[in-house]
């Protein structure tokens, strides 16, 4: 475990008749315990330069433990007073960070459901037969279906992770998102075989979008930089 201290100081000599001056310090712990948080994405700087203006997903709920004692630090590095970032949690607008402003707040990271399906390599395959999915083509090294499934499982897919059991490969989306109303089907893969080999897709389940991804929108198309860090369970 790590020891992380976070301190906020607020002060004003002329906002009220009485001086406003207080400081609060806390040691960041895991939910419901005194054990310190120990994971972080590290302190990062992200540039926003897009024309037209585009939002970015800064942190996905999948990145942290749902209902964990996760914390987010943000700072607008702009020095132009009119430039701001708008912070969204899912579709709820939290507020604006103008030039030099910072924020530090807890984050529940409420997750969604990742889309899944199983593809089963079956019937007669031959060396040189192919199966293509998510832009990745696997070329069968031999005719053994379990070996071909192992080859498919060993590939890197941009949008999916995989696990294998015999000749069946389970695909799981890398991110929880609402993929619409159509599940992944056999036709979404392309099988090219000399025999009657197939790769039937079954057990498809739709994904459900997360409810608390952190989205950031800059106020201008010119360059703006955001400093940020996620501390999480």
């Amino acid at each position, binding site marked *: 475990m*790590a020891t992380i201290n976070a301190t906020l100081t607020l002060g004003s000599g002329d906002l009220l008749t009485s001086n406003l001056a207080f400081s609060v310090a806390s040691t960041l712990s895991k939910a419901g315990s005194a054990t310190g948080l120990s994971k972080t994405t590290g302190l990062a700087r992200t540039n926003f330069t897009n024309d037209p203006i585009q939002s970015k997903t800064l942190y996905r709920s999948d990145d942290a433990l749902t209902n964990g004692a996760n914390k987010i630090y943000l700072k607008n590095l702009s020095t132009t007073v009119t430039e701001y970032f708008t912070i969204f949690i899912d579709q709820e607008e939290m507020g604006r960070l*103008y030039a030099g402003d910072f924020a530090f*707040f807890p984050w529940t990271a409420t997750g969604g459901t990742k889309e899944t399906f199983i593809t089963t390599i079956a019937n007669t395959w031959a060396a040189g037969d192919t199966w293509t999915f998510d832009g990745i083509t696997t070329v069968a090294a031999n005719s053994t279906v379990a070996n071909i499934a192992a080859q498919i499982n060993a590939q890197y897919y941009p949008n999916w992770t995989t696990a294998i059991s015999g000749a069946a490969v389970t695909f799981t989306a890398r991110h929880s998102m609402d993929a619409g109303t159509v599940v992944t089907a056999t036709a979404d893969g392309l099988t090219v075989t000399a025999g009657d080999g197939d790769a039937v897709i079954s057990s498809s389940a739709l994904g459900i979008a997360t409810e608390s991804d952190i989205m950031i929108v800059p106020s201008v198309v010119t360059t703006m930089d955001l400093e940020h860090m996620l501390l999480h369970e």
Partner: protein
Amino acid sequence: MATTTATVSITSADLTPGMALGISADTTLYQTGTTTGLELVDVGAGRLTQASGADSLQEALGTADTSNWIYICNNSTDVEQYMKIGIHDTVIGNLGSGEWLWMPWNMGTADNEINIEAEASGTIPYEYAIFKSTFTLPAKT
């Protein structure tokens, strides 16, 4: 105009190997997109119980798209007592005992109220400060 400053320090000697964490940031609280200081503030303290459910800490009675800041601190010393913080129907996060938050708040619509809820038995003491660009007092009933 008033000058109000906020400073944050986040430090850790052992979070990342070979690189001590030492964030220090400060800002002056300005009215929206200007260098004129914020002049409206509510400072208070209260006690939450689980039985009370979610309570509105502050209604969104200001002007949309303006600079406003929220400070909330959970002053409980029981590590199992945490506060759930939300904006209308969206949960932002859970504030553990002794923890605080500092975040901007856009009073964009009447449905942007800040709500707080105790998530453990007993009573949770808390304190808050809300700095605002504009605010309209609730109408008399």
